[in-house]
């Protein structure tokens, strides 16, 4: 048997403390005191304070003021915008599309959205927006127009990849750029540029490149000669034409068309007015307008004025050779 210690203490066996402790050991009581009571008290205090007149409005005001204060801190302020890499017109366009008022706060600007908006411009290849020392810097990579694309509803400027850069009011404004025509020409701009490069000494004489059936090119020269290039290896065909031209002075003759679509058998169509000469007894027939896009009136504004009123003539009369693939030309 071990001796037991008699412990003393004010709470030892105290009836009130004992009852209180037993109460505390009951789960609902514990939950009530620990959760419900503080929650209810907090709610009541908050409610009675917030429902006093003016408190809620005051809080709102202070909240907004605090937000204002932070946003207008000089660290976050953007005083101006600087656009680099863009032409003056494009700069105006960007300013207009962003529509920002300065000074603005960095916190209220969504740079990503603004960047997307700038990049959505046709003339912009890519844009990057950064804020540095209170200046919104927009560095733009502008698309460079490489060709003019003639469509039914007007002229468009395309870059070297065929992406639209902008509209062009008149052909004469960008006489330095080659002219493309035909459906789907924008998707084959690199090929067209390659052809122009391959044309060599012929290049200055090209009036337009016409996309046929969205698969091959016709080259229209200034003297009205139309060169039909094959779908495959058009550059080789062009080189061959250059050789023919040098040897036979082909393009200087009175012909209306050179058909190179079948490599083994190039065909030359004699110009209608030369027909009686070549084939005595044959009368010239009237030319029929081709179902090609009508040439814009701007053609008249070509520097040399030679194309004024000239449609793209396609003779339908009997030619020296049978047309091999008339279904390609509509």
């Amino acid at each position, binding site marked *: *048997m*071990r*001796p*037991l*210690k*008699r*412990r003393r203490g004010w709470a*030892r*066996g*105290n*009836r009130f403390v*004992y*009852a209180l*402790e*037993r109460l505390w*050991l*009951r789960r609902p009581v514990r939950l009530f005191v620990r959760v419900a009571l503080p929650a209810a008290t907090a709610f009541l205090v908050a409610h009675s304070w917030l429902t006093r007149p003016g408190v809620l409005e005051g809080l709102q005001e202070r909240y907004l003021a605090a937000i204002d204060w932070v946003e207008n801190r000089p660290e976050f302020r953007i005083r101006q915008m600087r656009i680099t890499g863009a032409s003056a017109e494009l700069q105006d366009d960007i300013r207009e599309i962003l529509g920002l008022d300065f000074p603005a706060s960095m916190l209220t600007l969504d740079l990503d959205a603004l960047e997307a908006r700038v990049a959505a411009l046709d003339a912009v290849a890519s844009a990057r927006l950064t804020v540095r020392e209170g200046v919104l810097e927009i560095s733009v990579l502008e698309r460079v127009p490489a060709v003019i694309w003639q469509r039914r509803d007007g002229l468009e400027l395309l870059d070297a990849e065929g992406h639209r850069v902008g509209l062009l009011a008149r052909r004469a404004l960008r006489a330095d750029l080659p002219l493309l025509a035909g459906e789907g020409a924008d998707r084959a701009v690199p090929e067209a540029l390659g052809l122009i490069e391959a044309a060599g000494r012929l290049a200055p004489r090209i009036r337009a490149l016409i996309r046929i059936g969205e698969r091959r090119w016709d080259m229209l020269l200034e003297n009205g000669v139309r060169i039909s290039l094959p779908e495959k290896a058009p550059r080789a065909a062009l080189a061959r034409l250059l050789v023919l031209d040098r040897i036979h002075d082909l393009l200087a003759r009175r012909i209306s068309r050179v058909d190179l679509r079948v490599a083994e058998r190039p065909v030359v169509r004699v110009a209608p007015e030369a027909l009686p000469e070549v084939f005595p007894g044959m009368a010239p027939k009237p030319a029929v307008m081709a179902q090609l896009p009508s040439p814009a009136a701007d053609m008249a504004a070509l520097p040399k004025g030679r194309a004024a009123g000239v449609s793209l003539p396609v003779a339908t009369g009997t030619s020296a050779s049978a047309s091999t693939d008339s279904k390609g030309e509509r």
Partner: protein
Amino acid sequence: MTASMFQAQRAMRQKYRQALKRGLFAVLDIGAWKTACFVLRHDEDMRADPLAWQGNLRLEATAVSASEGVSRGEIHDMRRAEKVIRTVIHRAQKEVGECIDHVFVTFGGGNPVSAITAGSTELGGERTREADIADALAACPLPDLGPGRQLLHAQPLHFWIDNRTGLGDPLGQTGQELGVEMHLLAIDLPVFDGVLGCVRNCDLDLCGLTAAGQAAGLGVLTEEERRLGAAVVDIGAGTADIALFFRQHMIHAASVPLGGALVTSDIAYAFDIPFAEAERLKTRFGGCIATSRDDLDEIPLGVEGEWEGERRTTTRSELIGVIAPRMAEILEAVRERLEAIEFYAMPSQRIVLTGGASQLPGLDRMAARILGDQVRLGVPIRIARLPENARGPEFAALVGLVHHVMRPSDEWWDFEGLERRGKGPVRRIVQWLASNW
């Protein structure tokens, strides 16, 4: 016998079912020296150690505190006793983290009186039904237990039908006459009310009150001993409780209002030392039989008071000289009680000593001289999770009470229909309401 006698017991049985349903309750031993408490959890689904006997009960916590206000088997200061109970329950609750609502109590003393009574009823050749058993129990005459008594136990010992005796369960047997022999145990009503009042004042529900003797018997005696017959003597601080077991049933209980606390006060008087110091000397150096070696053992007496420089010593044999006569007196009183019920005429005379005071060295040899040859010291059977410091013989009654709670003995008031005379449905509704509300 009348129904009013066991209304308190019926109410406790109701609480017992509630306690099992709640799943958490405490067993409490209110002693003169210590008040101890085991917290038990009851779970039908729980599969405890299959070898352990406690079935679906699991020990959750233990708490012990020094008792106050209890001595010699009665509560003489209810407020202090309540304080102690509150302290113990507080500690137990703290350990479990839950509120304890139901307690089973074992209490030693209370001047228990045992009586055997018998009654019988006519069967008329029919099969025995439960109503017949109830009739036979109701036919038992109430022996004179003295004034101001409260029945604590009323256990049917065995039944007989005509000339066949020793039936454990007569249900379904046929015969002409069904008889029952019953053991009644009553304690003083003030003691019963005192315990009930203390427990109620602690906001607890009393689910059962068991005599310490029976509890100690269940905690210490082996199955064999209970069947062949044995007496358990639980020598506590305030009382020595005796319970006699035969054929698995307790057939007699008694209590001697002498205990270890008397020994301690004897030492305190003899050496003029404080009570706590006397207790220390008793537990550390005490014994029942002196040897020549003990003359040489010097024991310093710790004295508090003004003689600061003074140091007194005594010898161990002197200490034993104080303890031994008192222990002998207690054992003599026990022997007297055993002789009074003709224990020594029984086939088995096994005596098992347990309780806190049984730890005095040499007590078994002394008891063998006084009580008889077949004496052994009993230690309570093992309970899973019982801490080491609660495994001594002073916890015999408490461990036995756990056993008793798990397998409560059939009591008289467990049989339905004792007070039933009519069988109408209205009567049964009223009865149900009366027993449940």
